[in-house]
């Protein structure tokens, strides 16, 4: 921890510049933001009614921010985020492929190894992720950070953890395809790492010379998505780990794609 503090001190000493005014002489903002957006596809953490991955819900990402003005128009932003959502169990009615959605492909056993979910569809698999991000806020010409219109470019690291009801799966009886035999699928918990690049357009205000208010819209793109959905080929149809990685990443990618955020904080020093 000492090392972290020392590092932070060195970084701040390096970036601190006597000619930067900040707001009222204060250049560091500590705050909380909530990123949210009604997700057109994907359930929340608790409810997947009507038992479909298309159930719309409100995404929520809780975010703790530490921001520091280090240049005339720039702020460096470090944040830790906590994301919790759900991944709907597939009932095999739709497929993610374009044609599948068009023609209603149905697969009675959609999970790898010929499994289907046999539990409560309205309770989705829980997907949690702790994200770390590093970003630079560039304020538009004329503004003096931390007040004004800005564009923030950031890199996000996702540390995902998917927990699902692995014992409530079933596979077809080898002797009678229409007869399902209860069984478990995978380990029930997987962790994945992911990365995203985000661009935020926002506006930051300071109320009563103390409280920071931040709002805007963020667009995030996960390059891993391509690797998983295209380059990985059909692996996810046979490999449970790959299947859930794909499901988790798709969920996160969709959730992070467009978000609005509202944040509150205070001017620290």
């Amino acid at each position, binding site marked *: 921890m000492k090392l972290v503090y020392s590092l932070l001190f060195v970084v701040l000493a390096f970036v601190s510049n*006597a*000619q930067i*005014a900040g*707001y009222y002489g204060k250049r560091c903002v500590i705050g909380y933001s909530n990123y949210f957006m009604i997700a057109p596809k994907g359930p929340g953490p608790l409810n997947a009614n009507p038992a479909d991955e298309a159930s719309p819900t409100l995404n929520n990402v809780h975010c703790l921010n530490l921001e520091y003005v280090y240049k005339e128009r720039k702020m460096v932003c470090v944040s830790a985020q906590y994301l919790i959502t759900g991944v709907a169990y597939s009932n095999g009615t739709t497929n993610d492929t374009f044609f599948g959605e068009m023609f209603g492909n149905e697969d009675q056993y959609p999970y790898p190894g010929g499994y289907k979910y046999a539990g409560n569809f309205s309770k989705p698999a829980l997907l949690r992720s702790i994200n770390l991000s590093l970003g630079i806020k560039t304020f538009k010409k004329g*503004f*003096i950070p931390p007040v*004004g219109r800005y564009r923030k470019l950031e890199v996000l690291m996702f540390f995902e953890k998917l927990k699902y009801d692995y014992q409530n799966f079933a596979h077809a009886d080898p002797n009678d395809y229409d007869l399902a035999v209860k069984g478990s699928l995978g380990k029930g918990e997987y962790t994945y790492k992911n990365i995203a690049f985000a661009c935020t357009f926002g506006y930051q205000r300071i109320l009563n010379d103390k409280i920071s208010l931040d709002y805007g819209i963020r667009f995030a793109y996960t390059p891993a998505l391509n690797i998983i959905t295209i380059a990985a080929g059909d692996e996810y149809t046979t490999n449970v780990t790959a299947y859930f990685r794909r499901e988790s990443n798709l969920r996160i990618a969709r959730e992070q794609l467009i978000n609005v955020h509202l944040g509150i904080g205070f001017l620290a020093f």
Partner: protein
Amino acid sequence: MKKFFVVKIVFAFILLFTGSVYGQYDSNYMPLTSSGLLPEEFLKTARSISEEDIKTIGYGTDRMAKQQFTISSNYFLRDLLLSGDVLINDPLGNYVNKVADELLKNDPELRKQIHIYVTKSPDVNAHAFDKGFIFINVGLLAQLENEAQLAYVLAHEITHVVKKHSVNQYIENIKLDKGTSSYETGSYEARNIAKYRFSQDNETEADAEGLARIKESRYSVKALNGAFDVLQYSYLPFELVDFKKSFFEDQYLILPDTFFLKKTAEIKSNDDYDDTKSTHPNIRKRRGAVEPELAVLDEASRKKYIVSEEEFKKVREIARFESCRLYLVDRDYINAIYASYILLEKYPENVYLKKVVAKALYNITIAESYSNRNKSKYTYSIANNARLSSKSYSIPDYEKIEGPSQRVYYLLDQLDAKELNTLALSYTYKAYKKNPQDLVLSALTDSLFSELVNSNQLYLNDFSKTSKAQLLALDTVKAPVETVDTTAEESKYSKIKKQQQKVEITTDENFTKYAFVGLLEDAEFVKRFTKASKGLTRKAEEKKDNLTYKERKKLEDQIAKENKNKYTLLGIEKVLFLEPFYMKVKTVNREEMINYFESEEKQVKLAEIQKKCADRLNLNYEMISTKNMTTADMERYNLNSIMNDWLTERFNHGDNSDEMIVGSDEIKTLIEKYGTKYLAWTGIYNEKGKKSHNTYFFILFNLENGEVMKYETRYTKSKDNTDLVTSFVYNSLMHVAKKPK
């Protein structure tokens, strides 16, 4: 007996006083200032007046327009009253009011409603507000011929007030814009011209009604004959006096005859100009409408002067003195020189006039040197405000000047930077020697020495200590050659040198070389010149000419970096602030409307923010404000006036901080009073259309030398929230207050 003695003493004092009416300008003149108590009408806020006025506006189709006009004219009037341009309890205003009293003797009710003030402007003009305020410019008083003409000007303006011409014009203009006016229903262009026509009709009515009012008074109607001449020739100086070149010359400084126009351009002012797009009818029309009415039966019993001929002449003389200074403020340097020249013929030892000439010459010299160094015509521009923008100074085209003053324009146009500098120094030093106690002349002399050495690279050895006449008499042309080697045969080169020296002595082109022959005998002159030569400051620029591109670039970068560091953190402890500027404008259907009430509220808020930020930065803060004044606040009013004069002149100079702020020497009083030489001014222009736009500016001056220490503008597309404004102000003040590491 004792009583009789007292009466004698009093009488002697009166005689002494009246005698000094004309004698008081022999040695000096003190610029006009306001005195006494501030009138009540200066103390009410524009908002409170507007709110009262709005209540009196009846209902009807024009209600909105009347309301808009009332608010905008009240704010405009308030700005003018508190700008410091308006003189209170001054000899000019007092006299003009006496004339108004006489004119409105039979209408005491109207007299009560009329407030007349004199404004510090050299323009030959007067204007009226519907609320009863009439402003007469100093420039107009300097040109009038008699008291009756002044009475006529007042009568004309009073008609504008009585007939409420301003509001009627405003409403009619709106109707013409919308096409709902019965005055003109034609095309857009026709309606546009109709606006001018409507204004001209008002002016014609004011001329006629003004004349009728004069006829009702005891003033001579015949005396008005020249009233329109005053207007027609208002572009000319107040007197036409032949300019003699001896004004700048002495025994040794002889200006070449070729620098003097043998014949000046004739005065051929056209009184029948095209007035289609003019607010006033042309002079011929006005004269034609009024002059046939000038014949009255009782002319013999009428007078040109009723209040006092002596006082009129005294007032006019003061106005002429004051105009010299106002020309300087307006950067009309050559008019300032010529006006001073006219008065110096009458008061040859007046130091004020000599200072006006010296200051004007100084600034022309500086501007000439500056334009040689900087070819760009860079200007300051704050929020695209024309008043706060300006171009570099250049001598006006002499070909466009009529009358004897053309000689001055021509002469100064012919002189190059070195010649101008030499001429200015010679004039200023001689004026200083006659008034050695005058610090302004002393400072000007030093600055001119510095300019001579630093900008024009003229050193002591560039000036001859022997006059041309002496050289010719002693035949010194041969002397140097003979002393070198008397036995040697005269070479081709020594012949060339001799020839050149002969030409130099016989021609008058190089008059600068012999300009200081007399002055170089003065030990103080030589001492000051030597001192200036040691303080070379422009070495870097001189060197730059011989450098390669890379070296030059490196040097420029180094200078830029030094300048950047120099002005980034200033470490100033105390700053004097002007009342901030705030304007909120709403754009509806491409039409801009100023929200006066909100602007006023925001202005107060901005001042609070300034104070708060300054306190946080431990910056000693002082603001010259015209808000919440009482009748006893005349000193504050005058200080604000000095400040505004200074600022107006400084803005006129654009980015050339070498030019001296010459309009007022009073700035030193202000610096001493507040204990700081730094003046800051902040402002915001906020425009709200489909989106909000802000233009913020901060400017910091050094009052001693006019240098711009910091100039910052920020343009943002956002609302003018308090936090945004605070961030701007804090940033500006931080750079002012913090010391460089």
